[in-house]
């Protein structure tokens, strides 16, 4: 038996979390370094996984399988396909930046009214989230995945509720109330989804007699497992509902702006760039693979919801007064694109959606983290409190603009590739949906540029006159992200090579073929 590298990738941050938490209270800086080192080690592990993964090989690679709860056929089964391995890499990549960006976010505040915030806990929780998310990307056992899917809510809940953004408009008590509201809302929404998913998971076990993804898929393919149409649809809905909340898809999105607005910027990145990706990832891996027929049945409705998400999220982003909420609504719009790409059920759409998950992670991280730096300087999240920052802090403004341009999918930056693939893939299958989604790119330009104009340009406001430019640590967070955005915008081939075979598998799962071009079809 070979070295269980997938387990190691998930265990490493978990160990890191424990070690970080165990660092004595007074040695805060040491805790930060420990956390950073562990996240970097995880990144190295993820890189090894990425290298050892053979794009043309088996569907699931580096698999591990051990009996866990034998009575219910629950197994500890891990394995990554092209999509999973990319998501693992993204997660491992983003966490060091999150930690570095949140370097001072959990320092105890000296003022009396504020609670003492344990730095160790903050970083340990982040690593905990990483461990669970990584493992959930690797799990090929439905039950194991479900447990992780739910368990990651716990550290997230504490990260949102316990370590809020210091920049707020009201009193400390008021902010604490809003924060706990946001945290509870996050938890309740996701728990509700998880509950329904649990029912579906149990239902699946009753019907299929197994939790193993590969076994069920095999049984379905060979025809030995014949699900009744209604059963399959109900089970599909149970799974999809949970993922749609996590993703989040309109109209189940309202927890996201609250959570992202109240959490610190790094945690907001953690929510939208890492944890939410589990939702869309799971749609690809579980919904399509386990319930292909039901997926096709539900496609029209889901596509409409995705379109509503795209347009609605963008319009709401335009109407926001709070920088972080604006970015949150922009994310709602982007998640609409991802779901659209997944359910367009074309190669381009699904490749695009997978790439989109990665690129959205990078672009939102860049934009949100810079926004976090900006907010921490001025102590306000309101757009109206800024103006003319470009004059006093040009590097900050420049990076903010690049993050914004990535968000609006400017060609040359990574998100363009994925967004265009999604659009083309959707258009090929559903032309009208494709055209409606295209409106999203105009709206994206609108909210991004309005945000940039109101905060960065114009006369310099007195409050921002002394604002310092980005520091070295902050630049170290943003610069690699921007470099990656540029690189993947010009040369996404390394990723598409890994993703394409996995998408082909998924396409064969749902037994769909790409629509042929009219010219060829005519021949």
């Amino acid at each position, binding site marked *: 038996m070979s070295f269980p590298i997938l387990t190691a990738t998930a265990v490493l941050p978990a160990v890191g979390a424990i070690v970080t938490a165990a660092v004595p209270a007074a040695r805060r800086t040491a805790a930060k370094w420990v956390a950073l080192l562990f996240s970097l080690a995880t990144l190295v592990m993820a890189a090894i996984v990425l290298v050892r993964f053979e794009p043309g090989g088996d569907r699931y690679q580096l698999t591990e399988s051990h009996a866990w709860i034998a009575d219910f056929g629950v197994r500890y089964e891990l394995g990554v396909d092209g999509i999973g391995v990319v998501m693992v890499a993204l997660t491992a990549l983003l966490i060091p930046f999150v930690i570095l960006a949140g370097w001072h976010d959990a320092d105890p505040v000296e003022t009396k009214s504020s609670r003492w915030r344990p730095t160790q806990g903050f970083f340990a929780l982040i690593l905990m989230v990483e461990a669970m998310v990584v493992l959930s990307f690797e799990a090929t056992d439905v039950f194991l995945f479900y447990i992780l899917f739910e368990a990651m809510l716990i550290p997230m809940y504490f990260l949102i509720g316990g370590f809020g953004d210091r920049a707020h408009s009201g009193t400390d008590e008021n902010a604490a109330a809003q924060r706990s509201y946001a945290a509870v809302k996050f938890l309740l929404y996701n728990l509700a989804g998880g509950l329904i998913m649990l029912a579906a998971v149990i239902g699946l076990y009753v019907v299929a007699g197994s939790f193993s993804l590969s076994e069920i898929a095999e049984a379905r393919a060979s025809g030995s497992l014949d699900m009744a149409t209604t059963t399959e649809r109900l089970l599909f809905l149970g799974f999809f509902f949970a993922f749609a909340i996590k993703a989040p898809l309109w109209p189940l999105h309202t927890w996201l702006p609250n959570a992202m607005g109240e959490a610190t910027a790094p945690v907001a990145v953690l929510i939208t760039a890492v944890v939410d990706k589990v939702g869309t990832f799971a749609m690809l891996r579980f919904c399509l693979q386990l319930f292909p027929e039901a997926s096709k049945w539900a496609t029209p409705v889901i596509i409409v919801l995705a379109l509503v998400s795209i347009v609605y999220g963008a319009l709401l982003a*335009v*109407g926001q007064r709070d920088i972080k909420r604006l970015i949150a609504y922009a994310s709602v719009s982007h998640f609409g694109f991802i779901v659209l790409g997944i359910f367009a059920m074309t*190669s381009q759409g699904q490749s695009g959606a997978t790439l989109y998950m990665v690129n959205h992670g990078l672009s939102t991280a860049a934009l949100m983290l810079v926004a976090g730096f900006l907010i921490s300087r001025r102590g306000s999240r309101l757009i109206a409190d800024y103006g003319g920052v470009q004059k006093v802090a040009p590097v900050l403004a420049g990076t903010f603009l690049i993050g914004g341009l990535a968000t609006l999918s400017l060609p040359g930056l990574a998100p363009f590739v994925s967004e265009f*693939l999604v659009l083309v893939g959707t*258009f090929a299958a559903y032309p009208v949906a494709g055209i409606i989604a295209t409106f999203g790119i105009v709206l994206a330009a609108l909210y991004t540029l309005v945000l940039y104009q109101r905060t960065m340009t*114009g006369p310099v406001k007195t409050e921002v006159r002394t604002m310092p430019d980005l520091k070295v640590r902050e630049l170290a967070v943003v610069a690699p992200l921007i470099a990656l955005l540029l690189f993947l915008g*010009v*040369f996404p081939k390394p990723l*598409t090579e890994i993703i394409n075979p996995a998408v082909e598998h998924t396409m064969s799962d749902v037994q769909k073929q790409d629509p042929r071009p009219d*010219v060829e079809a005519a021949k």
Partner: protein
Amino acid sequence: MENLIALLVAAPLLGAAVLLCGGRRLDRIGHWLGTLLAAASFVVGAVLFVDMLGKGAEERALHQKLFSWIPVEGFQADIAFQLDQLSMTFVLLITGVGTLIHIYSIGYMEHDERRRRFFGYLNLFLAAMLLLVIADNYLLLYVGWEGVGLASYLLIGFWQHKPSAATAAKKAFLVNRVGDMGLSIAIMLMFTTFGTFAFGPVLGATGETSEGMLTAIGLMLLLAACGKSAQVPLQSWLGDAMEGPTPVSALIHAATMVTAGVYLIVRSGAIFNAAPDAQLAVVIVGAVTLLFGAIVGCAKDDIKKALAGSTMSQIGYMVLAAGLGPIGYAFAIMHLVTHGFFKAGLFLGAGSVMHGMNDEVDMRKYGGLRRYMPITFVTFGLGYLAIIGFPGLSGFWSKDKIIEAAFAYDDGIRGWIFGGVALLGAGITAFYMTRVMIMTFFGEKRWQPAPDPDKDASVEPGIEVTPGEMPHPHESPRSMTIPMIVLAFGSVFAGAFFSIGDRFANWLAPVTQFEHPHPVISVPAITTATMVVLLAGALIAYLMYGHRPVPVTAPRGSLLTRAARRDLLQDDFNHVVLVRGGEHLTRSLVYVDHSLVDGVVNGTAASFGGLSGRLRKLQNGYARSYAVSMFGGTAILIAATLLMRAV
């Protein structure tokens, strides 16, 4: 030779990267570096051009594939270049005019503390524009397309602390995005129709699909062209774009970027040729914009905005020509090139005037400048003669051909209409350009003391202005005058050089095909008519502005004048319908999201809470009450059991 193509883009891109990331250390040499790399790109272009001339007409096109960009099942996008005669023309125009304007900017931006960044943006623009014209597929073209949009955004908003500049930049980007939507839909249509979007396969396979599909693609491409080239109905951004520094207006918003739409249409000629309805739409758009821009140009007092109106109108000519099919493509491009020369020259002249007049832009506050800045006067004057189509100068050759071609649209009423519109446009052009000329360089001095920059945000910074000081007009430094002189040469001679023996049309023919137009009336008649209209326009302008003193504050004017000053109310329409409407929509959606979408969920939670509140009262703590419910429950169970037995 193919390997040099990438160098065209790489040089300015390198410049942009170095200048934008380099930090303050490069402040002292940044502008030289930028200019040098632009010139390097021009040299590469020239080398390639010479090489191209050495080959036969059909073998001139070069291809270079760098690497596979987006390889996905069924979807192949490459980073690949194609340099044919059409691209070559653009490359030379872009790098040539671009280099000149780089040189000009060295002087113009001398006092701006962010000059390094300005040159970085200019280089970025060059790179994107070159990418646009040498891309070998529509998706890569789209990258360049948006890239120039970004550069334009950055440069219009270069003086970002001016809210008007920031707003204008945003507006330009947004309106362009609407056009970009058209381009992306067009690409998607190509993909679903042809399975590819590379120029060669798409343009070669137009015969294999329906005319309806081609019309759809054509209309979407037209939408894209409207956005980028400021054609009606997406023209509103161009006037505001004059908030940017003048070299930017000259390079981007006159000579190169705004002509990208024309390039797109000419490049997609095969599609339009097979879709007459789309062609008709192109012609109509061109004709409408031609008049629209000209009318707006007549009413503006801001010299740059008057020129912007003119640009719009001239591009209208080009689009009109491009819509005419093989009889017009070559003339569209030829007018594009000559227009690049004289309009860039005019803008640079305008910049030179502003430079000498404390950045005053209102022509009513100029007057009598010809003695103070002779070089500017002469070069501007040559550009003026060229644009109105004075016989022998560049504009005469190119515009006259377009008017001829417009008359040749068909044999019926349409030929007359389009020809007539083009003819009328020539007259109006003569009118407004004469007006600009007279108000700026002739007549009495109407100079005003410099405004206080602290009170008036519209003052361009960069030049030290003492409030209340009268301007001291002076000739601009040599770095500014030399580009103007070079461009003036182009304005004078380029047209004749291109036209004699249809040299230009034959050069482009392998790409665009070329047919001689057969207008509904004879060519000499058209030329004569053009001359008459032209003289009439100039004469009216002289009578109105040269003959009488020009008031410093603008008179109220007729209804048309007032509407034209406001861009024929198009902005007002946009504001009321799109901006206001959009604001209301987003605001109400924010409300809906909070109260309805969130409210439904919260309401569900609250109703559960209420229900539990009711149920809680059953939990009164009295053991006997619990016993009753337990006993009752048991009774019900027994009843159920008995009933089940009975059934």
